[in-house]
């Protein structure tokens, strides 16, 4: 047949995975298509029956079933089925029935196999296991943004320049000039007996930077012959060679430093300077954070909330992954809190007793996006006396929470805020709260308090948070009743089955107009990962880091941890991208997504991700039963 048969060609061209095929291949496919009509109710494929073609729906709707009769999928125009059978013994594995009068284009087995063998993108798309397709989809996207996901190592262009601690500062400055560097590593060859270093290696004991020479030498009027040891910084913050560049960025922000030694197998392989990163990342959250700390009033901070949104959009446009965006947004959120607390202390005077301001939930997990409410709390020193200190901390909390609301972090509807006296308590009360939740758990009680199990220190006594984290990790791990209650709550929110035309398909067969990506996707995933994380004693806060701990502890069936990671990443990115689209269109971003706004690619992969979540929930239910040893 001649290629001028455009109807079929034009149709195929509109749908994944044909969009990826070269014109010539597409012609070849179109000229070999076979066509079949099925009226509503007709059985298209029976279980076990031979299958000789791949079914692509031209019009109508088809339901695909599992062998046990459960609905597996409902497909409409552009949907396809039959690949499972074709790839395995040419026998139907998932029976299919026409739901409406349906016309299908059949791609004969020989053509399908040819495409599958010769075309990687095509094979990725129709891969036997849905989850494999999801992983390929993610991998391809990451290929496209090498820069944002690169490792620290890739920015290291030269070996570190180092000098012995016995030298003078002038000798050090000369070396820096000659080498054209802005920092020096200082080593001590006499300290080589430390057991954590090979004996022939000198130990890195300090760092000198341009800034140190200005601030500690010139400004102080010290002699140029001053020993280098008097000027260098000794509390060395470093990064590992295989950490991500954005993690190095976050470390610089957190500790307000511009140079980070890069270590590989405990040996320095270079120094990463802020300017190196800026060269890569000319636009990033660093600038927003810088402006937050220079703001002098809540009014000035309020102005910056617009900048936060453009920073978010910029990161999305630059193809940052969800972990980087979540982390950057959390750092920005933290910075608002920190600056507000500084301003509060300026206004109210120094705190009468030590305290620690907490971030809870998504901010603590470093999974914050732009549509978020504030979840926070205060830990006070055990010497807290409400009669003496009560007013100060109440005012402080009001100042911070009002300020956050003004900056776009809405008040928490569940009143989980430092302004609520219940969540503004001395450390010993917090210990009691956690002990009570873990040792006398009920599902109802935990439903309102699970957010406290994601906690991070924002300001003040961060060691108290460490203390509480240790307490949780110790008590929760082997308490099967507690884990079972947490697991039960983690099953309350479930994903939908997938999409059908412009509707969201529920497992019940019902249709809805839109889906809340947080409630039905990222939140249940985070909940589920939290339970597993607690069971393995993970002290990580981020869901991806928790997953790494879970995978290492090997409590999931092989490969399922990686699947969860991919599912979390994909659902998060869909949520993120749609918020960015809302911003672009001048709409107020939200978590609701209408299927009509999803691309074909997103629909197919989201369906896979929901499937992974759904299966993981079944496993969770089975694994955490009260009284069962985990």
């Amino acid at each position, binding site marked *: 047949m001649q290629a001028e*048969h*455009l*109807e*079929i060609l034009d149709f195929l061209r509109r749908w994944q995975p044909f969009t990826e095929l070269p014109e010539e291949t597409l012609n070849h496919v179109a000229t070999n298509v076979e066509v*079949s*009509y099925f009226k509503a109710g007709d059985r298209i494929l029976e279980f076990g029956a031979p299958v000789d073609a791949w079914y692509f729906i*031209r019009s109508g709707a088809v339901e695909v079933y599992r062998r046990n009769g459960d609905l597996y999928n409902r497909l409409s125009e552009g949907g396809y089925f039959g690949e499972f059978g074709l790839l395995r013994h040419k026998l139907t594995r998932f029976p299919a029935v026409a739901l409406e*009068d349906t*016309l299908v284009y059949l791609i004969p087995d020989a053509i399908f196999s040819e495409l599958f063998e010769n075309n990687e993108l095509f094979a990725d798309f129709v891969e036997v296991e849905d989850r494999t397709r999801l992983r390929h989809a993610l991998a391809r996207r990451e290929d496209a943004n090498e820069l944002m996901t690169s490792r620290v190592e890739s920015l290291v262009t030269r070996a570190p320049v180092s000098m012995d601690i016995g030298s003078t500062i002038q000798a050090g400055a000369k070396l820096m000039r000659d080498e054209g560097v802005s920092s020096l590593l200082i080593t001590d060859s006499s300290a080589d007996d430390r057991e954590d270093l090979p004996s022939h290696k000198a130990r890195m004991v300090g760092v000198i930077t341009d800034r140190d020479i200005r601030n500690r030498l010139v400004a102080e009027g010290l002699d140029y012959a001053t020993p280098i040891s008097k000027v260098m910084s000794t509390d060395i913050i470093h990064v590992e060679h295989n950490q991500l560049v954005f993690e190095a960025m976050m470390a610089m922000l957190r500790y307000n430093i511009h140079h980070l030694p890069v270590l590989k197998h405990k040996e320095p392989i270079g120094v990463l300077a802020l300017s190196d990163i800026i060269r890569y990342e000319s636009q990033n959250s660093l600038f927003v954070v810088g402006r937050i700390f220079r703001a002098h009033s809540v009014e000035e901070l309020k102005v910056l909330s617009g900048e936060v949104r453009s920073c978010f959009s910029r990161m999305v446009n630059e193809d940052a992954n969800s972990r980087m965006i979540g982390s950057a947004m959390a750092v920005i959120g933290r910075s608002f809190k920190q600056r507000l607390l500084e301003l509060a202390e300026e206004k109210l005077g120094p705190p009468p007793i030590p305290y620690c301001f907490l971030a809870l939930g998504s901010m603590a997990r470093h999974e914050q996006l732009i549509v978020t409410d504030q979840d926070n709390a205060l830990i006070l020193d055990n010497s807290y006396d409400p009669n003496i200190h009560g007013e100060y901390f109440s005012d402080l909390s009001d100042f911070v929470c009002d300020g956050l609301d003004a900056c776009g972090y809405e008040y928490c509807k569940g009143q989980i805020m430092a302004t609520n006296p219940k969540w503004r308590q001395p450390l010993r009360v917090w210990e009691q709260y956690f002990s009570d939740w873990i040792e006398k758990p009920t599902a109802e009680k935990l439903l309102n308090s699970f957010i406290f199990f994601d906690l991070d220190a924002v300001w003040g006594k961060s060691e108290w948070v460490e203390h509480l984290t240790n307490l949780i990790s110790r008590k929760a791990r082997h308490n099967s009743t507690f884990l079972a209650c947490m697991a039960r709550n983690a099953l309350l929110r479930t994903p939908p089955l997938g999409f059908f035309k412009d509707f969201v398909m529920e497992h019940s067969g019902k249709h809805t107009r839109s889906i809340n990506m947080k409630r039905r996707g990222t939140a249940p995933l985070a909940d589920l990962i939290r339970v597993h994380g607690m069971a393995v004693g993970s002290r990580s806060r981020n869901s991806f880091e928790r997953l790494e701990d879970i995978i290492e502890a090997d409590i999931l069936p092989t490969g399922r941890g990686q699947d969860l990671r991919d599912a979390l990443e994909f659902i998060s990115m869909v949520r993120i991208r749609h918020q960015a689209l809302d911003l672009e269109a001048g709409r107020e971003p939200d978590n609701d997504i209408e299927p009509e706004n999803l691309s074909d690619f997103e629909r197919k992969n989201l369906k896979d991700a929901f499937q992974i979540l759904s299966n993981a929930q079944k496993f969770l239910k089975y694994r955490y039963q009260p009284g069962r040893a985990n």
Partner: protein
Amino acid sequence: MFYLGRDKVAEAETRLPGSPEVPEWSERFATLAQQASNPHLKRFYEAGAVAGETPIADVPMLSIDFETTGLDPQKDDIVSIGLVTMSLDRIRLREGRHWVVKPRADLRNESVVIHGITHSEVEDAPDLTRILEELLDLMAGHLMVVHHRGIERPFLDAALRQRIGEGIEFPVIDTMELEARLHRRRPPGLIDRLMGRSSESIRLADSRGRYNLPYYRPHNALTDALACAELLQAQVAHRFSRDTPVCELWH
């Protein structure tokens, strides 16, 4: 295909199935094979026609469509031919063909507007005689499927008479007539007229819509042949069965 004209011609030819003038085609083909002098035509008849009681599911078919210079087989001629082999279960595009041929009648501007085949295209096209052998070989052993039998059969018959001095006969399944059996059986009743309802259109695109078949751009002979093939599958699925004897469907 010429929808506008076909509607009009259809009324005259519509008849109920099973009426006596349906010939027993397998016998008729045997006779015609004896009489034919053109070797290609002879071969076509020798391939035979299925017996009238054969279930439709067992019949190899060929959906065929012509674009023509006009509606009168005696004055007008064929401009393009599209065909695709099919069975009740599968339509196979791999075994489809599309030709533009040079008509011996004038290509009028009105028809150019419809099928989009221009004067310069037909100037370079071969005469029907050049593709006749291939066409007849493809038709051999197949039951022809058309949307309105007033076009393809009479036009091919006239074209062969003009070129090889003998005509052609064969049975066809007419999807338009199958549709007309449903919708033109009785005139619109009083209620229908009061409600402003007119009788259903049996044009190809409208008929397809009733079976949830997709819209295809009309007037490319190959697309129309495919559209007609799909329509037959849908009509049999809804209103007949796999076992329906072919004599209830053909003419």
